[in-house]
Every structure is written in structure tokens, then in C-alpha cells.
């Protein structure tokens, strides 16, 4: 079995989202489908996918590429929204519209039963986010909650906790993914704006670590044993060095945050997962197996293509250099456990 835990479906055209917005918001100005905070020169998506339809916007095409050509059994769809726009109430309506569109155009009509989806919510509107989770959590094809990487506060901070509590209560992991659109956000690196696209693309996924560190140190994982976060842009190549630091300083800092009652890295197996990325991992495949053992990454990593992104990777790419047990974990086992996905038997339906 192969599970692809990170696919971004797109609207066919800009106006399409308005069909799913309530009347009061239908005539509001919102960023375009194509709008990206940092554009990749030449386009954000695989060159061969620009054509008759917007990349990733046609269900049959995506299904053919992933399931038929790629050999994937399940794909978790995590659509982008339009950025942390200033009007957080409008942003929440955009999230709801994206969720309704996902159900309407991708999940409900999917007779292959291979697509799963994400409940996108806006963390800047905690009440609205909780309401959206409650509205959709019961749907059997929605397997996680989705929030942007971009944020003006890290996700361990208290204003967000009701959202994570609601997700955990419904046994839904929370996937963090770099969002599209145009938001009111800080510069993407610690040293300011990047002046090249590679300078942005190489760094941006690493910001997950501040979300992760705060979720541990503020005690969020400690208070919510069932809460799981998925960092869907990768960045796990820097996990070991930074968790080693977090572990080392715990013995010095424990008395300021004494609710952290174990080594920070002890929280990883029960609370943290990653989607694979084309940028992570040693460039020498001979090091891959040993490297995967550091920080127990073999139990944390799930294959995620990133389709239709220009950096989209195949299952073979993600499995390169792994031993057979690591390969099974990454290609399906970890995702199967997280999302409750089992191998389908021919001829049966849900």
C-alpha cells in the first residue's frame, strides 16, 4: 500500500470559490488562486501540469496521476486558503468555503474512495475555528484539521489551545502547511526577507520548529495526550540538532515551566509527524538508514508528494536509501495508523 499524505487540490478558476461563500462575503476582495507570498520564478507548480486546467484542479487528472500512474492507494488532500488576511472573519468564511468546495468537488463524488480531506480553519479566529471543526468533524472522509505555517504567534501559545482541544477530542491530527495567498505575516526568515526564491524555499519549512517547541514547552502536548501535529512541509532534517538543544536546556530551565515533566523529545512519538519533502535528508543515500534512526524519524515520517508543486516527489524518491521496514513506515504504515486507512479490498465500498 502507498499513502500520499500531502496533496494540494486547487480551484479551477478564481471566481469558483465565490459559489461557496455566503452572500454577505461573496462580493469581498480575496487573493487569487495563483497568489503566493513568495512566487517560484516560472510558476509554483510542475511545468507539465499547466495546461487545459489549473494545476491540481481536475479531479480525474489528479486521480490518474496519483493512483493510476503513481501507484498510490490513498491521497490526503490539504487545500491552500488565501493567507492570513487582515479580516479574520472573512478568512474563516474562506476556510469554510474551501472545505465545502473540497467536499463538493473532490470527496463526495469520489467513487474510488481514495481521496481524503482536511478541515481548513483560521487560527486567528479561535471561536470560528472550533465551530468549523464541530461542523465537519463527523464526516468520515475528513481526516485532519489544517492550519497555515504562517502565524504571528507560535501555536503553543494559549489563544490557540481551544482549537487543538477540539481537534484532539475528535481524534483529528492538526496539519501545519505553508499557505498560499497574501497574509499579514512577519518576514519568512529570522534575518528578514529572503532576496532569492531558493533563499525563501530552503528556509521557510524550518519555521515549524518554533511551533513544535512552544507546543511542548507551553505544555499543550502535556495537557492533551491525544493531540497530534503533522508538519506537512518537512523540515525534519533539522529536527535532531534542535531537539538536542531543547533537551539539553530542559535540565537548566525546568523550574520556569515545571509542567514539562520529561525530556522534550519524549513527546515526539505520541504527538508529532512529518510529511516527506524533496529538500530533506542527506544527499548521500548511503547515510539515509542510519540518519532515519536519529530522533526516531522512521516512526514519524509519512510520504507526502506535495503534488502539484514543482518539487513534488514520487514514492521512489521518498523511499530512496531506506531499509524495508523504514520504507513501509514511510510509504504507508505511519499514515495508515494516523489516519485510520486500511488496504482496500477490490469491489467493496465504504
Amino acid at each position, binding site marked *: 500500500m502507498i499513502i500520499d499524505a500531502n496533496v494540494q487540490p486547487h480551484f479551477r478558476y478564481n471566481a469558483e470559490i465565490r459559489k461557496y461563500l455566503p452572500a454577505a462575503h461573496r462580493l469581498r476582495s480575496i487573493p487569487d488562486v495563483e497568489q503566493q507570498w513568495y512566487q*517560484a*520564478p*516560472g510558476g509554483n507548480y510542475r511545468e507539465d501540469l499547466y495546461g487545459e486546467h489549473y494545476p491540481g484542479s481536475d479531479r480525474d487528472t489528479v486521480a490518474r496521476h496519483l493512483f493510476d500512474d503513481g501507484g498510490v492507494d490513498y491521497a490526503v488532500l490539504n487545500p491552500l486558503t488565501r493567507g492570513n488576511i487582515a479580516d479574520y472573519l472573512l478568512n474563516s468564511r474562506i476556510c469554510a468555503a474551501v472545505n465545502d468546495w473540497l467536499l463538493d468537488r473532490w470527496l463526495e463524488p469520489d467513487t474510488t474512495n481514495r481521496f481524503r480531506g482536511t478541515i481548513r480553519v483560521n487560527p486567528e479566529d479561535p471561536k470560528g475555528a472550533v465551530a468549523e471543526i464541530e461542523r465537519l468533524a463527523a464526516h468520515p472522509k475528513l481526516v485532519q484539521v489544517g492550519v497555515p*505555517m*504562517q*502565524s*504571528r*504567534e*507560535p*501555536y*503553543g501559545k494559549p489563544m490557540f489551545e481551544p482549537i487543538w482541544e477540539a481537534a484532539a477530542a475528535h481524534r483529528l491530527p492538526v496539519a501545519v502547511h505553508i499557505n498560499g495567498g497574501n497574509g499579514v*505575516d*512577519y*518576514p*519568512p*526568515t*529570522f*534575518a*528578514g526577507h*529572503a*532576496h*532569492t*526564491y*531558493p*533563499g525563501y*524555499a*530552503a528556509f521557510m519549512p*524550518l*519555521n515549524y*520548529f*518554533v511551533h513544535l*517547541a512552544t507546543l*511542548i*514547552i507551553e505544555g499543550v502536548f502535556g495537557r492533551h495526550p491525544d493531540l497530534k501535529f503533522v508538519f506537512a512541509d518537512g523540515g525534519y*532534517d*533539522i529536527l*535532531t*540538532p*534542535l531537539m*538536542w*538543544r*531543547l*533537551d*539539553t*536546556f*530542559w*535540565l*537548566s*530551565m525546568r*523550574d*520556569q515551566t515545571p509542567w514539562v515533566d520529561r525530556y522534550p523529545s519524549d513527546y515526539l512519538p505520541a504527538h508529532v509527524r512529518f510529511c516527506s519533502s*524533496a*529538500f*530533506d535528508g*542527506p*544527499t548521500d543515500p548511503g*547515510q539515509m538508514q*542510519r540518519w532515519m534512526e*536519529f530522533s526516531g524519524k522512521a516512526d514519524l515520517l509519512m510520504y507526502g508528494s506535495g503534488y502539484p508543486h*514543482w518539487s513534488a516527489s514520487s514514492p521512489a524518491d521518498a523511499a530512496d536509501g531506506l531499509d524495508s521496514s523504514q520504507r513501509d513506515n514511510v510509504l504507508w504504515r505511519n499514515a495508515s495508523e494516523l489516519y485510520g486507512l486500511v488496504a482496500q479490498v477490490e469491489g467493496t465500498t465504504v
Partner: protein
Amino acid sequence: MTTIERVEPQTEIAVAIVDTDVHPMPVSTDVLKSYAPADWVDKIWPTGNAVTPLPHFYDTPDSYKTMSMRVDAAPPGGGFAGTDPDYAAKQLLVDAGVSIATLEPMCDAQLPQAEHVLKSTYNDWLADVWLDKHNAHGRWRGSISVSAQAPEQAAREVERWAGHPHMAQVLMTPQTRGIPFGNPHFDPLYEAASRNELPVATHLMGQTPFELIPLYPVGNPAHWHDFFASWPLLYVSHLMSLVFDGAFDRHPDLRVVFVEGGFTWAMPVMSRMDRIWEARRADLPHVRRRPSEYVREHVRFTTQPLEDADVKPFREYLEMMDLGDNLMFSTDYPHWSYDSPAYAINRFPAAQRERIMRGNATALYGLPSTVKALPGEGPAVSVSFE
């Protein structure tokens, strides 16, 4: 206890350990002010307080009582830890076995001109007190502090000190108010440093002027713990800029030292940059070489604070990383997060130890192979790198 033979003052001993991060402080604000231009004294120290701002946006452990210093480093004659060069020599050079140490004052000021004047003042003070009056043993090296906001003046400050026998490097804050290190803004400084064969080191500076706290891209943690664990990402940002913005191509002789920001992150950062460079060569026409090659040639990392992971996987990781030519031991004396040389030596793979504890810093800074022994030291005290 092993007894140490008394030695004649002029006896030379082999350089065994180079410490690339030590923090001297003026004994009082008045002493520091005496090195400043008269018309700047009231502008930089309007209330006459704080010699140098200590980190205060975040509380280090027990910092109210310890002031973020080793509790056992306060000079017996009185005063703050790190203010007495001779007591520092006793604790660090004699007791801890360090042969040569690079001094890095921590200071910063809000406005560009004030920043430049303050750093120049520190340079005059450091050269006089630590590199001259209290350096008969010749084992202190200094840093030329320069302004990140005024790179032309920084370049002139580099020229002012370039011939000094004990100034080993340039020192600049990494908290550059949103301008990453690879930006052409720094070119005048890099040009002067490179031409004078002086590495440019960077080290966390004080956190008193507001804008020196980098606003983390997804917001700031509440505690020093997660703040400082994430801190290397500032160096990662600067390193990626140095490579991708072409600074190493514009300055082929530039050497950059990342101090007190860890180093184990260098392995994944090198591979990330290599992968993305391979995939996006067309976006980077000015970057002529594989990114990891730039790191190996141009960049050094100091080792403190060492991670306290199990030693076997830690050494394995360092072997995989294969940066034995790029790491330089440091203690961070007299700060609380001090790493002792005896602890550090055993953390490294045997084959890398000599280079990390001595060889790489010796090569980078052009250090001698012997130094004058201090009272209480003897050639009998040897360091094994096996």
C-alpha cells in the same frame, strides 16, 4: 590531586586548547566612558547606568541571582565575572587549561552612529586593558567590534586595527535589523575584512535596544528555553543568505565564524541548500559552486553550547556530518552556559579532536604553536587527544 611543577615565567608550553569565545567586561561604566569621545559620553550613557546590557528579554536560569554568569567566576577581589583579566587568566588559562582565548565583548546601541562609536570605544578599551596591560603572557586575542548598521564606518574601523598583533577577527551582531548577511549592504565591511585576512565572527549581542530581538517568523516563544533552542535558525538564515545571495562569490577570501549558535544544524542546512540549488540553478546564476562547498571553505562554527545527547550517537552524527575542519572549541567563559574543555574533548570523535580543540582555530587566526606558561602551569600538564 596531581602536583604541577612551578615553572620559570618565560617557559614556553605547547598550545593545546584554543578557546574561541570568551567575554570580557569593563570593570565599571566610568572606565569604559574614559575611552569614549567626550561629546558622545552623554549620548550613549545618558543615565550613566549599565556597562553592557545583559540579555533581559528572556530570563536565563536563576538569572536574577546569577546574572547569567557562572556563580564561581566572580573575582575574589570584587566585581562582576569577566571584569578581571588576571582572575580570568587563572580560572580559564591555568585551571581549565586553555592556551589561547579569543575575547568577544557584547555590546550594542540603538542608533547607527551611536552603535559605531560604542563599538570603537570597546575596541580601544579591549586593546588597552586586555590585549596590552594584562597580556604579558600574550594569550589573549581580541575582536574588532564593528557596526552592522554603518558598514562603511565598520570598514574604516577594521582598517584602524588591522595591523594589531592581538586583534584576531572582526565581530558583528547577527541581529541586523532585518538585513541578512549575504546582502550587498555588508560588502564594504567584507571587503576590508577579507583584504586584511580577518575572519568576520558573529555572536548574540545584548537584547536591550528593542529592535535587536529578532521577531521570529511565526512569532516568539515565551521562555528562554524554547527561544534559545530555536536561536540557531537565525544563523541558518544568515548562512543561506551568504550562499544564495552570492556573498562568498563576491568575497572569495571571506571567512565567517558563527559563535555560540551550535553547529549540528550545519549538516541538514548544507544538504537542503545543495538539493535546492540543484533543482533551481536557473534562479541562482551568481552562485557558481555547490552550496556545501562554500560552507566547507568559508565558514567556521564554535562548539559551545554542546548538546548533552548520548555520546555515542552524538559522535556518530559528527562523523556523518564530516565538518572536522570547520569546528572550533569554545567555552563562553564566564557565562553560565560554559563548556569545560575536559568535558568537551570527549564529546568529539577521536579523529576530529585535535582539529576542533586547537588546529582549526590555529589555522584560521594564525596562532603560534607555543605560548608563555603562567605561574601554576607547567609542561607536565599535557592534553591527550586520543
